[in-house]
């Protein structure tokens, strides 16, 4: 417990230090700006850099049909590997995303032509024309897209990794009570989820059934959050479709394991006047939906915000007038935010699991009548 308090304290201190350093750097940057040479006006070079950075950040936040590790802006070459594109358009169409040549060309599959536009695949003619309506939405036919995208690949990798990690941990118990190898790192984490998250929220006699889900969700989110901080450039938990799915799991598990008491409290709240019961019913039904909604928004927004902050801080180098002053500042700020993001990566996984356990606990617990 005292250790928890310690980390909390360090966390607060870190925040303060970051604020101080931010202030100092703002001052330094402003002074450095005074001495920096006036940017040449009229050529629009700076504006272009800014919009380029915006486009780059937006592109990073989105899912992609190829796994690009890095690109060379000058030669226009990309380092990475293509991924399979799977489309349902009057039959199954499978081809490699290298046919798109990084969103530049039209892919020809049999007699059909497809083109990527803002991360979405559209059916086009041979020239690749995409028609827009007045709201700048493409009006072309959109085939159903089941592609193995960058996010899907990352999730499969994490799935396999977790299978290996926890399969190994489970097997090591057959040999003895003590886990061996990497299992020694995992065992305390599993026990932490059981003792700090599952048992206090769900209850000692009912928690076992939900441990599988809670552990999976905890490690899945945590590992994906941590992968998002590596230079691989993946952003899986910062994708709203994935957080929606995770929250839906919690929602359905909560609803389907709920007992009679839970439904009674939603549809016919005991202990209040009849008029109040009728007023409370829609509110309670809405309440079951807002809980997972808050869950999905929180994870998505936190991770997206973290990625945007880190990338914006790195981008400071490119918009600065004096690169030699800005680079160390940007680097230090990025390191500080990265350390906080490491904490956030764990915290968000913890919160998601914790609140899932709490919602499940509310649905399965026996209400003792006073």
């Amino acid at each position, binding site marked *: 417990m005292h250790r928890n308090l310690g980390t909390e304290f360090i966390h607060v201190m870190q925040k303060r230090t970051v604020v101080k350093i931010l202030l100092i750097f703002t001052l330094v940057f402003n002074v450095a700006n005074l001495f920096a040479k006036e940017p040449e006006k009229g050529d629009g070079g700076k504006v272009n850099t800014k919009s380029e950075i915006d486009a780059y950040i937006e592109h990073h936040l989105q899912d992609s049909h190829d796994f690009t590790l890095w690109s060379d802006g000058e030669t226009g070459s990309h380092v990475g590997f293509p991924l399979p594109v799977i489309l349902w358009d009057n039959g199954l169409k499978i081809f490699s995303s290298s046919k798109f040549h990084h969103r530049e060309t039209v892919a020809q599959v049999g007699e059909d032509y497809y083109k990527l536009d803002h991360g979405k695949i559209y059916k086009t003619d041979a020239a690749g024309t995409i028609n827009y309506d007045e709201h700048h939405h493409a009006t072309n036919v959109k085939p159903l897209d089941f592609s193995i995208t960058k996010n899907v690949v990352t999730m499969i990798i994490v799935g396999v990794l977790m299978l290996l990690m926890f399969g190994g941990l489970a097997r090591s118990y057959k040999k003895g009570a003590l886990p061996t190898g990497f299992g020694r790192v995992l065992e305390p984490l599993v026990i932490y989820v059981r003792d700090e998250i599952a048992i206090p929220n769900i209850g000692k006699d009912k928690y076992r059934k939900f441990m599988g889900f809670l552990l999976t969700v905890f490690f899945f989110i945590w590992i994906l959050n941590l992968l998002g901080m590596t230079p691989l450039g993946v952003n899986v938990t910062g994708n709203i479709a994935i957080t929606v799915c995770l929250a839906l799991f919690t929602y359905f598990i909560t609803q389907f394991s709920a007992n009679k008491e839970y439904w009674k409290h939603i549809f016919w709240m005991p202990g209040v006047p009849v008029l109040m019961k009728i007023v409370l019913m829609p509110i309670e039904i809405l309440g079951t939906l807002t809980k997972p909604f808050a869950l999905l928004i*929180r994870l998505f927004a936190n991770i997206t915000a973290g990625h945007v902050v880190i990338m914006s801080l790195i981008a400071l180098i490119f918009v600065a007038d004096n690169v030699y002053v800005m680079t160390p500042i940007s680097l230090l700020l990025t390191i500080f935010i990265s350390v906080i993001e490491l904490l956030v990566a764990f915290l968000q996984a913890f919160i998601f699991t914790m609140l899932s356990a709490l919602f499940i606990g509310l649905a399965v617990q026996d209400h003792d009548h006073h």
Partner: protein
Amino acid sequence: MEIPALVGAGLIVIGAGIGLGKIGGSAMEAIARQPDATGKIQTAMIIIAALLEGLAFAALILGK
């Protein structure tokens, strides 16, 4: 005159800041009074902070 969305974002952040400050402050007082219950207080604090944060994020995203 149209009020820019950033003003709304600022208001949301002010509200969330006040809320988090109150939660943190009360938790600190509670821990000072009952150091033995630190773990329980912290857990409750994090849950309430997370709920508040979810609300603030929802407002920020819906307002965008």
